[in-house]
């Protein structure tokens, strides 16, 4: 059996949406898949050395379970985003769910290849030194070179 391949495009940079690409990539790698993740737009922020800026907002997210019902205008108050992020991280820890840092490290350790979108770096004036080492930078063609031969291709 030839090795299966998985390609993921990660476009979002919030705490909740950081999970799907890293969970699927690390698990696929454990299942002996060859995996690449293409990080573009806000997804690229998931490759920063410092992930403390990765947050979750209760705003525009009516499905987010809250300990108490919270009117939208209250969610918009200063500090609510940090509070929601802190509560979510506590929940994650108490339930034995891995941190984003741990899952990302598991991906790297198991050979998942990270591609950073060059255009996004230029667009947002990101600095390469803010990102972790070992990333290959490229564009859409770089992604398709691998994605064209995969068994599974996901857009997150």
């Amino acid at each position, binding site marked *: 059996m030839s090795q299966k391949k998985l390609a993921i495009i990660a476009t979002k940079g919030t705490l909740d949406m950081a999970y799907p690409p890293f*969970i699927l990539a*690390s*698990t696929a790698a*454990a*299942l*002996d898949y060859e995996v690449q993740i293409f990080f573009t737009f806000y997804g690229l922020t998931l490759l920063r050395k410092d992930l403390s800026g990765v947050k979750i907002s209760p705003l525009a997210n009516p499905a987010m379970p809250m300990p108490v019902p919270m009117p939208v205008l209250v969610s918009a108050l200063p500090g609510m985003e940090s509070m929601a992020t802190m509560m979510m991280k506590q929940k994650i820890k108490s*339930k*034995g*769910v*891995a941190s984003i840092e741990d*899952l990302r490290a*598991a991906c790297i350790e*198991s050979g998942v290849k990270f591609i950073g979108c060059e255009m996004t770096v230029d667009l947002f004036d990101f600095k390469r030194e803010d990102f972790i080492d070992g990333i290959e930078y490229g564009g859409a063609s770089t992604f398709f070179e691998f994605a064209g031969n995969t068994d599974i291709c996901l857009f997150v």
Partner: protein
Amino acid sequence: MDFNKELDARGLNCPLPILKTKKALGELASGQVLKVVSTDAGSVKDMEAFAKQTGNELLGSEPQGKEYVFFLKKK
């Protein structure tokens, strides 16, 4: 059942039991048996799928109270 190594995955949630199982199997020689103890109910189906996909044989899977015990033979 006899085993060569035990992995304590209690309290860990998806996908950590699988990731740690993969890592622990990497430290075993072909034919050796890994015992995994998990509290994640989802790991029952996940461990079957892991065994099927990777070719490491699942020798046994048994619930013990609120824990799930697996025996995997490294291919």
